[in-house]
Every structure is written in structure tokens, then in C-alpha cells.
């Protein structure tokens, strides 16, 4: 480069004094906007990385939450199944019949109905069925009920026993006085849906 400089003819000396001012070199001019671009680019790269990181954390957090909820659901379904099983066993006919018998209930040997619409009793009185469940209810086996206590064998809580018996003693005269139907219309009909 320096050799070439000599080869050039010298510029003629200017007659007038030229206007001189300091200008930024081309290189300088080019550098300034480049820095802005770099900052923006790198900044947005960092932003993207950060966003991706946050997203990924959130997603994997969600995966753990799903996992947790799914195992919760599984456990709850199992519990529900176990409770259903217990409910079905306790509501089995054998269990209910045995309970009814130990509470002193005996089946009527003949069909007898109270017609709520007319108040009429239909069917004739029968004798207490001596061969019904009043005697022996246990002829239809259910091995699952082995060890399941009857209602009368479950020890009631100390507080509730007197209340129940008091209510049991008090209730019949109370209903006898107040709820005894004077006319057919006031018969206590069950609310059905």
C-alpha cells in the first residue's frame, strides 16, 4: 500500500483554504449500529433461553403434578372399591335379615297392605310365620359375613344409648297423641319422588 502512494501524482495545491471539519471515519460510522444489533440479538437469545427454561420447568412441574394426581386418583378409586365392597356386604340380605331377627322383628305370614289412598286395610290378618326367619335366619350361607358383627353386638357410644332408649320410650305416646290420623286424608304418606 505504501508503495502505491508514491506512484500517485501530488494533488495541486488549493488556492483557497478549504472548509475543514472532523468527521467520523467510515469504520467508526459502521461500528456504532453494530453494537445495538449485537445487544438486541444476544439479549433476545438470553430471553429465549430463559423462556424456554421457565417453560420446561413449568411443564415438568406439571408432569409431576399429573403423576401425583393420577396416583391419588388410583388410590381413591381403590378406596371407593373397598368401601363399595363393604357396603354391598353389609346390605346383603342375610346380614339385614339376621339383624332384623335379633332386633325382634318377625315376618307376617300373610300379605297385608294399607292402601294410603283409601285408608283401607287389604288382606286378612295372618299368624306370625313360625317357620320364617323368626326362627333361624342362617340357612342361606354367606361365608363373607363370618366375623361381621350384628347391629346389637356393636357397642354403642356411651352418650347415645340413653338418648335412643329415651326417644324410643317417648316417641310412641307422642305420635299417638299428635299424629294419629283423624281422617283418611291425614294419613302419613311417605314422600316419594
Amino acid at each position, binding site marked *: 500500500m505504501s508503495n502505491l502512494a508514491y506512484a500517485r501524482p501530488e494533488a495541486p495545491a488549493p488556492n483557497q483554504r478549504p472548509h475543514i471539519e472532523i468527521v467520523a471515519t467510515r469504520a467508526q460510522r459502521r461500528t456504532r449500529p453494530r453494537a445495538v444489533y449485537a445487544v438486541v440479538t444476544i439479549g433476545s437469545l438470553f430471553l429465549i433461553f430463559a423462556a424456554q427454561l421457565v417453560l420446561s420447568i413449568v411443564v415438568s412441574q406439571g*408432569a409431576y403434578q*399429573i403423576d401425583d394426581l393420577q396416583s391419588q386418583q388410583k388410590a381413591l378409586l381403590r378406596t371407593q372399591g*373397598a368401601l363399595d365392597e363393604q357396603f354391598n356386604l353389609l346390605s346383603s340380605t342375610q346380614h339385614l335379615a339376621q339383624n332384623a331377627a335379633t332386633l325382634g322383628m318377625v315376618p307376617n305370614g300373610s300379605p297385608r*297392605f294399607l292402601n294410603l289412598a283409601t285408608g283401607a286395610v287389604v288382606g286378612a290378618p295372618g299368624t306370625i*310365620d313360625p317357620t320364617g326367619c323368626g*326362627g333361624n335366619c342362617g340357612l342361606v350361607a354367606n*361365608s363373607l*359375613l363370618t366375623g361381621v358383627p350384628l347391629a346389637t353386638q356393636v357397642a354403642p357410644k356411651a352418650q347415645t344409648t340413653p338418648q335412643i332408649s329415651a326417644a324410643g320410650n317417648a316417641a310412641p305416646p307422642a305420635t299417638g297423641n299428635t299424629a294419629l290420623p283423624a281422617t283418611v286424608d291425614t294419613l302419613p304418606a311417605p314422600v316419594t319422588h
Partner: protein
Amino acid sequence: MKTRRSRRRISFAVVIAFVIVGMFMVRLVDIQVVEAASLNAASYNKRAQSLITYGTRGAIVDANGAVLADSVDRFDITASPRIVLKSDSVTLAADLAKIAAITKQDPAALMATLTASPDSDFAYLDKGVTLDVYKAVDKLDIPWIYFERRPGRTYPNGAVAGNLVGFIGTDGPQAGLELTQDKCLKSTNGSATYEKAEDGTRLPGSQVTSNDPKDGGTLQLTIDRDLQWYVQQRIAQTYQQLAATWATAVVIRIKDGHLMTVADYPSVDPNNVDGVPVTALGSLAFSTPYEPGSTMKALTAASLIDAGVATPLSQVTAPSQLELSDGSYINDAEEHGEVNYTLAGAVVESSNIAVSLFSRDLSAQKRHDYMTAFGLNSQTEVGFNGESDGDVHPANEWDERTNLAVQFGQGMTATSVQMASVYQTLGNGGVRMPVTLVAGCKHADGTVTDLPPTEGKRVVSASAAKQTLQILEQVVTEGFASADLQIPGYRVAAKSGTAQVADGQGGYGDASVISFAGVAPADDPQYAVVVTAGIPTSMYSSGAIASTFRDVMAQVLTTFRVTPSTQPAVNIPLYW
């Protein structure tokens, strides 16, 4: 010289660099393109976790939805002896003691299980434990225990309808509806695959391929659980009183032929199959035909009236014995002189002689056709596991004695359910409805299949059926067991049967089958009941089972709230 050497050096370095880069390129292409598929698969297998998702076998429920059979979760406790014995020698005994305390096992037995094959990777510590036990053992936090889910089956009502429901053994369904309706009940297991992290968590966004499990359908029966229980209870009492060898009872709804109850005694508690003899695992009412005896006289009367050869007031004079051409006799249960029976009297007094005389008025083939039209000699529409056809020989094979005996229920056989169907037909104005035990199969997607057939078939005219019931009513108002049969407020039509049992050597032994069959209310028949007991002696007549029939019928009327009769029974003269 200087530049040439340096130029050579540079080009050498460039070549080396190119070679190295080239090698990497080749390897890169090899991995990324050539071997990509197999490598991906291999890595996926490392990350992927595949598991079976279980479908649930469907429940069996009664007509009101009460559960008779249900699927439950049970768990097996397993361990790897090889790993346990190596890693946990210090606390092993204590751990086993803790487990044994919960599962109520012997710790020494558990230890023996583990040490039996110390190199094995698998051993059951306990099988089929309930959720409570599972939770308690899980809480112990013993690291070497693994649980496996084992689908179980439970029958919350025990022996109630146990004869019908059947049971499931280790190899799947073994008896009853569990077996024959397996197509409805069975579930299909699914599978799922996902990629797991090191701690087992599913990787977010990982590929999941799955076949959804399919739950089995719910099988609804026509049986009423509570009635079934009562009837089983009642025939169990009868069984004990009579020292019987078996007893059955069938309750069928007249308008559509739906079975409300099919009770057998002895019968199986599906939860405890080993508790009963093998013969009690099925349903005797379907599988065991017997000579029904005089309950067949109702069918005979209906046939004769329908064919127009007799009316309830038709007359016959019964001698004390009816001599056949081979010199043998047809006798009545009680000896009598000459009696002038009407057809009604012949049925009510259950005279074999009088019924035989009436039967001669109708050809054997026609009488045979009536029997098959009533459903005899072929399985009912139920098609129960092991169901019998019963047996009515073709009319041209009947000898002189059989020709008459079939009309009072000897020399042919029928099952309890077939007899119930005969009385259903009589109660339904002569139209036989298909016998139905399964009301439908409700699938997991809500569709219902296996709906029962509803088309009836006329067997005898409505008038013939009605007149037959009027005759049968006289059994309850005037017959020998009338005191045991009457239900206050209701008109009941019934017929007794006492049949000898063939001893297998061409004759009849001591054993007999006693039964009662009938419908109520007679003026508007709703339900038919057949109770039957096989007894080893001829000590008892059908009167011994009359009160059982009455109690069952009374319970049926109560359960289904049948309104009492409004008109008194019509009297029909039995003699002339």
C-alpha cells in the same frame, strides 16, 4: 525455499484437518442417518415403560340392581429372594415378623418361602390380600416388597342365587352365568407405553401409545334377591324337616315368563365353593329332571278341554283298579270302590284311574303334541349351564301303560323350571312366554344387548286355561291339603304331585318326589310357583310340602304387592 516449505507444511495441515473432519462427517452420517432408526429404538426401549391397564369384569345384578357378583381389587405381595437375602440379612427377620403380623401368617413360613429357592427372583409372600392389608404392609416401607394387582371376584350375598350366578376359579369362570354369560361379563385389558424419567415420572410430552382397557358389561337378571333369599331359606327348612335329598323352588312371572326366583337346596356359596358337594354347584331346578307326578294332571285337563273332548263337568266312573291288557293295574293313591268323578273331581282328588279314562278320548300323538307345546322335552329359552331337556318319548314309543301314565306324570320327566313354565302358560290364558333369566347385558358404552325374547306362543285356548285354573282352585278350597294352602284374601289355584322315583332297574323304589305347583291370584294370575323336594322315603305325601308352597306364594304376593282377590272362587262339583 522458505515459502515453499511453509506452503507444504500448511497444505499438509489442511489435508490432515480435512481427513479428521471427513472422519467425523462419516461417523455423523452413520449415526444420524444410517443407524438412526435402530439407535432411536434402542434408546426408546431404555426410557419407555410399558404397562398393562386392567379392565374390570362386569357385575351381575338382580332385577333391582342389587349386586350379586362384583369385581374387587386384591393384591399379591411379592419379593425377590435373591436380592432380599443378599441385601437385607440384618433386619430380614424383623421385617418378616412385621408383615406376618398384618397378613396373619407365620413368620417362619414366610422365611421358608424366601429361602426355599434363594437364587430365584420371584416369590409370593401372600396372595390376594385386601386393600386394608395392602395399605398396612405398604406403610411398613420395606424396600424389597413389591405389590401386584390381582383382580378378584366377590359375591356379597353369598349363597343367595349362588346356584345361578356360578363362580370363578383360578382358571376363569367355572359354573352358572359366570360361565355361560362370560361374553357379556369379561373385560379386555389394555396397554400403555410412556417414557419415564429416572424416578419413574412420565416425561412430559413423551410418546404414549395405548389401547384402552374395556370393562365388561353388567349382567342384569330377572331374579329378585330378597325373594330369592326367602325362598332359599324356606326350602332349606323344608329340606331339614323332611330329611330330603334335594329341594327346589321356582317363581315365575306369568305375564312375561321372567323367573323371579330359582332356588335350590343344597346350593353353593360362591365365596366358599369347597363348602358344598359337587352336585350342589349347579342349579338342580334346571339340570335335574324328575317324574313330576300329579302336577301334570293340570296339563292333561287343559289339553282335554282345549281339544274339546272334555269339560270340567265331564263324567267318568272310576273302578277301584284299572286293568291293562298285560294284566297289570293302574291304581289310585288310596283304595276306593267305584266313584263317579267329574273331570274336576279327577284332578282335585288326583285319581290316576279317572284321568287315564278321560285321556283315552284323545289320541296319544295329540296329547304328546300338547306336552311339547307346553315346553316339555326341550330346554327352556334360558339355556342354563347343564340344563336338561327333560324326557317325553315319542308317542309311538309309548306302551299301553306309559300311554296313560304320562298323563299323571309318570314315565316322562321334566325339570322344575319346565313345570313352572307349564303353570305360567295356564296362568297366562294359554299363552306360553319364553322363560327368561337374563334381562339384559348393559355394556360399558351404554348399549344393552341380550334382551330377552318377548314373543309368546298360544298352547291352549284362553277358555281352556281359565277352566283348568277353576279346577285347580278346588284343590285349595276343598282338597286334602286345603288348610295348609289357603292365603287369606287371595284365590290360589294349585296342584299337588307325589311321584315315585324309578330305581333304575325298571321298577320304582322307596324314594319319591313331592311337589306343589300353582298360580295366584286365581282370578287374575300374576305369579306361578313350583316347590319340589326329593325325599328318600315314601313316608310323606305332597301334603308335607303344601305349607312351603303356601309360604312361598304368600311371600311372592307380599313382595310384589299383588292386590287381593275381589270375587270368591266358583264351586265346581267334583262328583256326579
